[in-house]
């Protein structure tokens, strides 16, 4: 009797189990609710009543659309939408570039003005502009004509320094107003921002400083900022929920990098005004775009979806669901936003082409200064 035989029989029992596991719990499960069919799951099998099939929307993790809105699209056009999320804007763009030969879907939403050039230069997009461009969209279009033909602006958000008004009132200190103020001794050890290398609002803030102080001047500004006790965190949630005194964690720093749309979220229960405010002279504007992917299996559906994203039906959902502002100015903002989440009149800007070219060098210099 060979001992190996024993092991073989033991292993055989294992194979049986493997065969059993083929009837698994997670893969055979049908979609749990009818609504989720609109939000995903039926790939390639058009369900009855919607003969035109599915459009696959590739997007970033922050994409949120109410089920009803996506169902409205299906009703209007006959296409079902399947959403596939792929990390943040940078990861999304890089994945599209890498999978150019067999694209991840039909349409993309969520490439922003800091990554637009990379996507356009890599040739991952087809030309498409909405048949009925909404009023107010034009100022958000990319400056480069080729890029403007491929990417349609959908929403925008201002990344701004936020302050905890209650903290400043309690201490009797005048709150800061400008980027320059943040380097003053009065505000030593009070500012926290997510890092530019690991966070997209963090990068936006770096770009705001580059827009303000120029390509030669921003390094000096950041040295002063760091010397004034600025704290760098990995991501936005960490900065806002742990370190910021006006956030959920009741941290120790009353100045934080966040969004122009953050203040309405700090209206206390039963209160009528926010306890924080955004400094509108410190902002960089992030614009998010949609487009049709080159090599899409369903280019007509993708084009219809891009058109839908700028239509009022979708546009009116973006403030409450993604905390951004619609580009379509015929859509009214939620009342609390209209009152407490004003956008910057003159945000700082850096040309998208310039960003694509110098991003890496800037981030490396920034890393040396801020985290070195």
């Amino acid at each position, binding site marked *: 009797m060979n001992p190996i035989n024993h092991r073989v029989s033991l292993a055989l029992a294992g194979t049986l189990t493997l065969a059993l596991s083929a009837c698994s719990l997670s893969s055979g499960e049908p979609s749990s609710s009818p609504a989720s069919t609109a939000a995903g799951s039926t790939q390639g099998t058009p369900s009855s009543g919607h003969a035109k099939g599915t459009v696959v929307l590739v997007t970033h993790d922050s994409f949120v659309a109410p089920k009803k809105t996506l169902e409205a699209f299906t009703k209007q056009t006959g296409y079902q939408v399947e959403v596939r999320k792929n990390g943040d804007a940078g990861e999304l763009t890089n994945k599209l570039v890498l999978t150019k030969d067999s694209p991840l879907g039909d349409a993309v939403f969520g490439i922003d003005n800091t990554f637009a050039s990379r996507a356009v230069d890599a040739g991952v997009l087809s030309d498409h502009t909405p048949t009925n461009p909404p009023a107010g969209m034009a100022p958000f279009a990319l400056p480069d004509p080729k890029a403007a033909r491929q990417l349609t602006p959908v929403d925008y958000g201002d990344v701004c320094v936020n302050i905890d008004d209650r903290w400043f009132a309690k201490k009797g200190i005048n709150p800061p107003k400008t980027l320059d103020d943040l380097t003053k001794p009065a505000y030593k050890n009070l500012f926290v921002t997510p890092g530019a290398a690991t966070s997209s609002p963090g990068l936006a803030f770096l770009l705001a400083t580059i827009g303000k102080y120029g390509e030669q001047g921003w390094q000096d500004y950041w040295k002063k900022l760091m010397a004034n006790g600025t704290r760098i*965190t990995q*991501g936005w949630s960490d900065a806002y929920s742990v370190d910021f005194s006006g956030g959920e964690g009741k941290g120790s720093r009353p100045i934080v990098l966040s969004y122009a749309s953050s203040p309405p979220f700090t209206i206390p229960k039963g209160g009528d005004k926010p306890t924080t405010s955004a400094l509108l002279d410190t902002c960089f504007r992030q614009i998010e775009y949609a487009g049709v992917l080159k090599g899409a299996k369903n280019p007509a559906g993708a084009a219809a979806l891009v058109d839908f994203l700028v239509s009022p039906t979708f546009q009116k959902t973006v403030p409450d669901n993604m905390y951004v502002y619609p580009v379509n100015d015929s859509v009214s903002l939620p009342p609390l936003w209209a009152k407490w989440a004003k956008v910057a009149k003159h945000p700082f800007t850096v040309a998208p082409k310039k960003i694509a070219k110098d991003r890496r060098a800037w981030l490396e210099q920034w890393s040396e200064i801020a985290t070195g």
Partner: protein
Amino acid sequence: MGLALVPVVFLAIFFVLPVAGMVGRGLQSDGAWDLGGIGEVLGRGRTLRILWFTLWMALAGTAFTTVLGLPVAYTLYRLSLPGRRLLRALVVMPFVLPTVVVGVAFRTLLAAGGPLGFLGLDGSWAAILAALVFFNLAVVVRTVGGVWEGLDPRAEESAAALGASPWRVFRTVTLPALTPAITSAATIVFLFCSTAFGVVLTLGGLRYGTIETEIYILTTQFLDLRAAAVLSIVQLLAVVAILFVAGAARTHRERAMPRTSLLSGLRRPHRGDLTALALTGLVLVFVALPLVTLVARSLQVGDGWGLANYRNLGTTGSGDALVVPVWTALDNSWRTAVDATLIAVVLGLIVSIIVSRRARSAWGRRVIATMDGVFMVPLGISAVTVGFGFLITLNRPPLDLRTSAVLVPIAQAMVALPLVVRTLVPVLRSIDDRLRQAAAALGASPLRAVLTVDVPIVWRPLLAATGFAFAVSLGEFGATSFLARPDRPTLPVVIYGLISRPGAENFGMALAASVILSAVTVALMGLVERLRVGSMGSF
């Protein structure tokens, strides 16, 4: 031997192919290999700094985890303490928490103004080290504890009766018997530490980059695939070297040993156990602190206290932050975990059985040693490389799996598989082959021999491994977030979604969901413990 092919093919498709695809893409330009970049990337000052930091951080993390884990393993698996099963489960809780939540919990404790703010550890490497120990303690305690529990105490007792001091008994009798398990656990911890990602980013505040964080930034932000490929190769070589050393250390030690299947190994604590008890107490406080912080913050509602965050788990959060309510996500997690555990345990069993064979030829021994190591490698390779590799290699029929729900349990199983193998192999190797020969000589059929010799011994570690694989799957975030379909997210994915969106309500829900995730894990581990004990009566 055909059976050996199943795990090998699995590994080839879901690991070797994607990694090779990614590295190939990085080192080719216009279809031709371009290796000139390797030297350039390695020559960068930043690369060297990162390699150095990764190495010593992983070594320090492994050393601390192992040294602190041993007294805990002893106390919880060798002494008959009241509530030891609960404590055993408690130690595993950190292992399943999403890193982003642990980051928040640690930072709440350490940040200026926090309960431990006076230590000044916020953003320091010491904070990263503490978090690495926090996460990995479970690996050492459970792997070593499982073996320690089954050791026949009579060898120790005779040594003591012959006049050996307790320390001498430990050094000459206990430690040699435990060495294979300790080496196994330390190897896994080292691999986990060297690829730690979220913790380093959250707690290090960017100042400290490791190979893993660097690959992430190079790939997702800069699209510098060449540098990422070079770092992936370095990672691979380092992992292979570590496994080689660990394998060599193990094979010298692993041998058949007498064991007991009675619970006589458990005894009342006496005065000599004071040091171990005190250390265990300290370690448990250290593990409990962040967990308590988490629970406390999940009960905070505005300026008061309440259960509102838990009630909200049935909703999709403020501003429809989620596609499905948290309870649905828990259901998804559970289903996925069952699949992942099945795959990991079945494949792990096959690999363990093959690897624990004693080959007669030198060639056979080499094959077995290689196979033993190969299944550990995925733990040491960047999840970003594997994930992006999936996208560019599994993209054509018949392997167009990019959007398949099957990938999630498969990816999780790949993380759990090495844990299963490392738990089972030391046990299988320690079975004296003469027992099987005796059974055969007495006329037992091969199946009968397995049932009476192998199964009674393997049964308990197998359950432990199953519980562990389940915990890994429940907590896995990196690969899952990459692969999970948006309409069917798991609990960690949902927690991450909640925590990264504004609004106190979402933040509170994220913490409440984390507490639920830990509670489910503890309940499960507790159940496994109970099953293991229940089985004892029959033998």
